[in-house]
């Protein structure tokens, strides 16, 4: 349905009558709104959740190429054992006889079996930088090796879709919750002219006043002129009301979903809350650190295993909790680059090149590891040390943006990326 129409017209009165916004969907009035929405090209009701693993996750121990002999030669003490021979230590969770998941990712195996989970391997940025800063910047702006890009690609997406073309200028603005980052600061990927919200938690998204002060503040913004300050303020109070109606404090995850008590788990839980509250969430973002495992990264257990345990249980809970709504949801992970194929002298791995990412969702053609596998023999490595790149991250990002969100102008989304749809892997 169209969140913009919903925002400005009948929804508020329904909310104040104590009806949840999702009620709208099922009313005749709602149906009318949805028709209107179709005219505005924003009737998809789709949500994309992007998860950034900051610090460069070690792709080879995440999606394990246990079929490669070189993998075990180059990683004598940190390799994940083969599924079949994993006596004592937990081995990889077999996916297709060649690749397996790190044992900590076992909670994602059911998603693989359901066919909604597609790992993509040897994917990343064509830039040869090994700087976290630069590589994250490139992945978030969507322009590898271009440092002058001021906005993030998700913000450009917001400008592409949903903004009213000529003819609907009179209708109201997009939902203030259209793009939400569960982070303290607006991340680079969402930076830009389109309005987004960054917050630590839904609890914080309210006026922290008790008694009559809150009502008076609201009145301050309800009155007066239609300038930028009033407009933003008025929108904010509507957003707060919507959220209050969704009642985040009373939230109980569904389908037995158990979110970890970690920051990531809690943030994904709140993204689920927003989705279920039908507040018009289209793009959500969260990030999680701890992947820069130069020292003692461990194998089946240890540092990396702990990070992956959090990641897997958080994602599994989110998918379970969203239930049927996964049909309209795509979760995409990303990390700025991979790590060296060889383990280093400190039981860790150093900055590498290609990485791996996950695409999970109802319209994902899962149960397949995507991407051409470049191999790990010496002559197959990038600069003699790293997993070579066979898929540009923009191929996956643009396919998801186009097929899931309905983005059309890909050349605006990823300027300078000439492959366009030709290099899509068919993940969706």
């Amino acid at each position, binding site marked *: 349905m169209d969140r913009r129409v919903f925002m400005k017209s009948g929804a508020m009165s329904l909310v104040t009558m104590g009806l949840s916004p999702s009620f709208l969907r099922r009313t005749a009035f709602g149906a009318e709104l949805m028709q209107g929405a179709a005219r505005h090209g924003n009737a998809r009701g789709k949500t994309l959740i992007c998860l950034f693993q900051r610090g460069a996750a070690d792709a080879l121990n995440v999606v394990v190429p246990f079929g490669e002999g070189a993998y075990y030669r180059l990683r004598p003490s940190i390799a994940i054992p083969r599924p079949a021979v994993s006596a004592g230590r937990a081995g990889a969770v077999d996916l297709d006889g060649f690749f397996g998941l790190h044992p900590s990712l076992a909670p994602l195996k059911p998603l693989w079996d359901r066919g909604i989970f597609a790992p993509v391997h040897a994917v990343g940025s064509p830039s040869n930088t090994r700087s976290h800063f630069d590589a994250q910047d490139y992945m978030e702006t969507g322009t590898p090796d271009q440092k002058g890009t001021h906005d993030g690609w998700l913000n450009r997406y917001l400008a592409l879709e949903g903004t009213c073309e000529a003819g609907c200028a009179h209708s109201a603005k997009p939902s203030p919750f259209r793009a939400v980052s569960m982070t303290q600061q607006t991340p680079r990927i969402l930076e830009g002219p389109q309005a987004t919200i960054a917050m630590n938690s839904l609890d*914080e998204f309210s006026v922290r006043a008790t008694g009559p*002060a809150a009502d008076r503040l609201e009145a301050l913004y309800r*009155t007066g002129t239609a300038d930028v300050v009033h407009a933003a303020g008025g929108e904010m109070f509507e957003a707060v009301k919507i959220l209050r109606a969704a009642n985040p404090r009373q939230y109980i995850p569904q389908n037995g979903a158990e979110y970890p008590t970690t920051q990531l788990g809690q943030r994904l839980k709140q993204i689920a809350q927003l989705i279920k509250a039908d507040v018009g969430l289209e793009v959500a973002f969260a990030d999680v650190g701890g992947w820069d495992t130069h020292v003692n990264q461990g194998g089946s257990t240890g540092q990396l295993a702990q990070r992956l345990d959090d990641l897997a249980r958080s994602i599994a809970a989110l998918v379970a909790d969203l239930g049927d709504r996964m049909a309209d949801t795509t979760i995409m992970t990303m990390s700025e680059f991979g790590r060296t194929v060889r383990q280093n002298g400190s039981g860790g791995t150093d900055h590498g090149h290609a990485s791996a990412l996950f695409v999970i969702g109802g319209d994902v053609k899962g149960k397949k590891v995507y991407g051409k596998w470049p191999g790990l023999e010496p002559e197959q490595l990038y600069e003699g040390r790293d997993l070579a790149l066979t898929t540009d991250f923009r191929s996956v990002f643009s396919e998801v943006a186009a097929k899931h969100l309905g983005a059309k102008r890909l050349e605006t989304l990823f300027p300078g990326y000439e492959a366009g749809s030709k290099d899509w892997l068919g993940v969706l």
Partner: protein
Amino acid sequence: MQHTDVHSTPTDGSRMSKILRPLAAAAIAALMGCAPNGTGSLSPSMGGATPFVVVSPTEPREQTADQQVQHALNRLGFGARPGDVARVREMGVDRWIALQLAPDRIDDRANDALVATYESYRRPTQEIVAAYRDGQQVLRKNAKQQASQGDTSSKKDMRVELLRADPKLQEQVRQARRVVGDVQSVKLARAVGSERQLQEVMTDFWENHFTVYTGKGLTRLFVTAYDRDVIRPRAMGKFRDLLGAVAKSPAMLFYLDQFQSTVDSTHHPLREVRLPRARAAVRGKGLNENFARELLELHTLGVDGGYTQHDVIEVARALTGWTMNPRQQAEFVFRPEIHDADEKVILGNRLAAGRGIEDGEQVLDIIARQPATARFIARKLAVRFVSDDPPPALVDRAAQTFLRTDGDIREVVRTIVTSPEFFSRSAYHAKVKSPFELVASALRALGAQPDTTPRSAQVVAFLGQPIFGHQAPNGWPETGEAWMNAGAILNRINFGLALAGGRIAGASVARWPEADALRSASREQQVDGVVRAFLGGQASPDTREILSSGENPLAKKFAGSADTTAAATMTMAEDDPGPMRRAANAFTRPVQLSGLAQIVGLAIGAPEFQRR
């Protein structure tokens, strides 16, 4: 046409400063006798190197006299403190502006003394770098040791343990961590407390124009010197001097990768390195265009400034050899062995082969004096001082001043802030405050003591504008829409409530100088007092009515907000959840406000206070 009151003949700007320079001393002498104390007082100890030029209007201004005072305080500074309006009115707004344009004539010793209390802010870069290096070495050595013993604890756990065992190292790491917090805190404290308000506005402007990001690697070690030695002393000087100092600053050399840029394999270095291994080491990296590109696009000519991709490459080639060793001396050095000594052509200017550091100097000379640069800088300043879409005629005049004075920033600003456009009705309250401006102006209005902890600066970050925290090289937006969205307004409103509830260090409604007189006054009088102090005396009828409505204030209810302060402080002291969480904590617990504090809290959250 304008005239000055120290020289009665109407004259145009170009002749004015020449004529006035010899007269300046006499003018100062005359002024010293009558300048009031406090804001903008002339320092008897100051020598007065900067010309003092009072430009008075020849035509009536659109703004009322009261508006002009408010406007000047809001634009040339971070808003009025208690008593400022009266002082500026008494001195005369034109005289106050002239004084702000000559900051070395303003006594700012109280603020200097405050700044001197910041330990890390006094340290030379080399010391900061050395402390960081020592800490890293110990940690690295220990990590190796632990790895060889098969210890699998995480890097973070290891660090915590190591620091617990070694108090000296702990102190060193603590000091290193303070560097960024201190420079952020100093900057806000100065905006709140300095008498040289325009100096602070201009420092903020240039630190945003030449932005660097502390989150990028070692940049954080260099921001102290960047603020203290690079930007601040040149904020009202010649643009070329500022540009050169920025280009050679460790902060910028690191942030935009210039220090890594070397002659590429298709060109010849100025000095050959004989040993093949050394050659590979110095020449392995090749050209890095990052700084050259932003230098043209963001620092000087502007994106449509008439340069080509070829110019970017040629500028990058000319700047090769401008480098530093970030982990050792951390100061600018020119290295001939990585400098591209072949011929370059930049914007039609031929740079002959075989030259060294002068290549880069000439590039800066050329681009600093381009009309496109003059226009780009003039417009950006007009956007900061006048409106988001400044009148083209004003931008033209400011750009002309730039070209005529060889990029004298002070004179460009003077052209703008003494113009009829600056004092136009449409410019009044036309700008939306950035979070930094919002926090500084609220603290000033409340007469708050500058906070020397990092906390208030963290509040600025919480509101979306971490100081030296903009990742991309384009800096924070200078226009209003970018700051106005649902999330931003919410945080601003909550900031007002937190401030009025006594949750921001150094600030309290109870200690607000106006509070004594207002505490037992009627609600209407309280509203008048708050509107005067926070909203420049002008509130929409709606705002006034909303501030006025509600129960009559009771002295004991007002006193209740002091308890809130104590409670908040206690909660924050419990454990250290990290600076960002601390800033967030001030916002997350609901505030119960009544009486005067409630009016103040509402006023800071009002639409009028979001503007300047």
